[in-house]
């Protein structure tokens, strides 16, 4: 807490215009979460969490941090200010990634080990449903209108569509080998899905559930099978998609209209995920092998900084500004 207050003090001295955000990074091997301040780009805190933390996300108000502790078979709810565990949510076995519905309380959790998606009410802490999906579900997303949830199964190689009203899987769309991550566009009309081993990103029309575009990647001097798309972040203005390309150590920037690759940005080694900061100027990547986070300037499309975190950083989440006291949110 003392350190935190010192940081708050330091932030007051920052130049105007640099809005302060906190980036939370899960360190899969260390069983910790690192907190990075976006004005100084320094790690301000590191706190212990459950075993093999992967996906992480915030409640809408930024007051609660949810962490998939895969090997602890739990979703942990943590007070982001103190790093203290508030309680666990029943999560099903081996929670890998999850997505919080727009209602702010329904959590859809991909259970990698037992081919199910678990739906939990984060307020009542009750399991609402367990839905059979394909093998090794991983990517999880809820549509902006909250009506649809999707999970990608890595060995079945499909996107499974879940009706959030009935909590039933209603359809499946085959995609490239080892689909890892799914991201709805802000208008909810399209779904972007990365295929790690297929080396592609599929853009799916949500209404028809058909793949309308398959994006491939080429990088000079890098053999095709090291280009392995994993994380996807869509820019606030909706014009660009940032795709983490795994062991090619690069992030591709894709134009969402033409589906052309505008740039590839060299980041750290084995880049897993990308998270965009509010305002659209900066993104961060988690680099599993080099154990660091790269900061990307979204305007120049260049890597501007790298920050050492714990071992095997995997997921990244930006704390909503409303929950950051230093940003002036009402207590």
């Amino acid at each position, binding site marked *: 807490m003392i350190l935190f207050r010192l940081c708050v003090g330091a932030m007051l001295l920052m130049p105007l215009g640099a809005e302060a955000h906190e980036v939370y990074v899960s360190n899969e091997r260390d069983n910790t979460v690192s907190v990075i301040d976006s004005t100084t780009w320094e790690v301000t805190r590191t706190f212990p969490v459950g075993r093999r933390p992967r996906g992480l996300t915030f409640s809408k108000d930024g007051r609660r941090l949810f962490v998939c502790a895969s090997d602890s078979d739990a979703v942990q709810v943590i007070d982001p200010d103190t790093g203290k565990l508030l309680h666990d949510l029943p999560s099903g076995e081996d929670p890998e990634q999850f997505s919080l519905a727009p209602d702010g309380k329904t959590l859809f959790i991909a259970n*990698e*080990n037992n*081919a199910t998606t678990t739906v939990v009410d984060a307020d009542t802490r009750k399991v609402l449903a367990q839905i*059979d999906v*394909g*093998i*090794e579900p991983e990517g999880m997303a809820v549509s902006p209108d909250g009506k649809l949830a999707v999970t990608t*199964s*890595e*060995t*079945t*190689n*499909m996107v*499974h569509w879940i009706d959030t009203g009935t909590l039933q899987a209603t359809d*499946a769309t*085959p995609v490239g*080998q*080892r689909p890892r991550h799914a991201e709805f566009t802000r208008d909810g009309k399209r779904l972007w899905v990365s295929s790690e*081993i*297929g*080396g592609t990103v599929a853009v799916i029309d949500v209404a028809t559930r058909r793949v309308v575009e398959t994006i491939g990647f080429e990088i000079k001097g890098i*053999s*095709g*099978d090291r280009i*392995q798309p994993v994380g996807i972040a869509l820019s606030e203005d909706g014009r660009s998609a940032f795709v983490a390309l795994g*062991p090619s150590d690069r992030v591709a920037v894709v134009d969402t209209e033409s589906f052309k690759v505008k740039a590839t940005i060299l980041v750290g080694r084995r880049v897993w995920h990308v998270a965009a900061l509010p305002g659209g100027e900066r993104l961060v990547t988690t680099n599993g092998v080099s154990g660091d986070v790269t900061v990307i300037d979204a305007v120049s499309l260049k890597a501007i900084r790298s920050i050492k975190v714990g071992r095997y950083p995997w997921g990244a989440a930006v704390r909503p500004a409303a929950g950051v006291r230093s940003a002036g949110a009402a207590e």
Partner: protein
Amino acid sequence: MPTRADLTEGGRRGFGRHALRALLTACALIAAAPALANPQLAIHYVERRVERPTPLNNEPPIPDDEGLRGAELGLRDGNATGRFVGLSFALTSTVVEPGADLPAALAALARESGPLRFLVVNAPADDLLAIADAPETRDAVLLNVGAPDVRLRDRDCRARMLHVLPSRDMLTDALAQLLLYKRWNRLLLVSGPGADDALYADALRKSAKKFGARIVAEASFDARGADLRDSALKEFAVITRGPEHDVVAVADERAEFGANLVYNTASPRPVVGTQGLIPTAWGRPVEAWAAVQLQGRFAKLAGRPMGAIDWAGWMAVHAVTEAATQLKSSDGSAIRDLLISKKFEVGGFKGRALSFRPWNGQLRQPVFVLWPGAVVAAAPVEGFLHRRTELDTLGLDEPESACRAFGGNG
């Protein structure tokens, strides 16, 4: 509501030495979800058991169900996936004991099951060829999961025979790449007396030549007639005394002495090859690229770690079911065509897309170089390049293979 396919144990019978000719093991028939539009696709696991020497150092014996358990997991995975497109798969298992009549077992299988379309075969090279040339398998695709022999990918290849297990030369190429990467270029080679040992030693020599390592001396060792527990300390020191070398390479496929060579060499040198640091398709310490998921599912099913032949069994069934799922069809010839086409790619928990080489049917794949404690490297090792894919630095490349059976596909 379709439920996950459940394997039933208990019905499994072996083809004993004195078994009746008609005795067929129709075990592990799987009750899967009812097919919607497509008929259930049957995959047949056929194994010829081989006699194995008694473990030398009380190590766990090679499991009796190595290969089959992997195929069973592949079936489970395949059904869990296939149900989303209205497909279901079944697996039968036929295990023929050493010396028992394999053609009879095959004929019985065909009588019982109808036309054979997909066979996962775990058998020595000669048995595999006999199965490939039998009338019952005229229209079948054979997936080899047990025979590493190079000749099956070379002059003895067959058009309908795919190889899921890496060949011996893929293994020794992987090892050689790591040795070169580490600049451990000088090998002292110790070979056992078996025919397989000679093939392994031969593959090692070729790999050394291919990548620029040097075999500085060779010795042979026959464990028969000596009690290693008494003699290892002295005898191994004598046979591994030789010109300067970086590693002692061992060719001992039946594991008759190699494990005892480790730490028993004249000079303090690592042992590599069939024991010590080994190249292999799969092993217990393999963890990366989500392998831990597959390892976990397998351990839950089989109650033991997954070995290389288990992985190949899983991979063989996974490839067939994945091709069927991509096609949304159980049509045997369409599945076969897709499997060997250039557009087919499949994941195998090895960090890269795997595919079958169109010139000899070998599955392109990374090979792990590991010891029981850890994976040291996954080949292709950094720096070994190929114009098509680095995976083709391992094993017979297109111009080197004498296989012509795939003809138009090449």
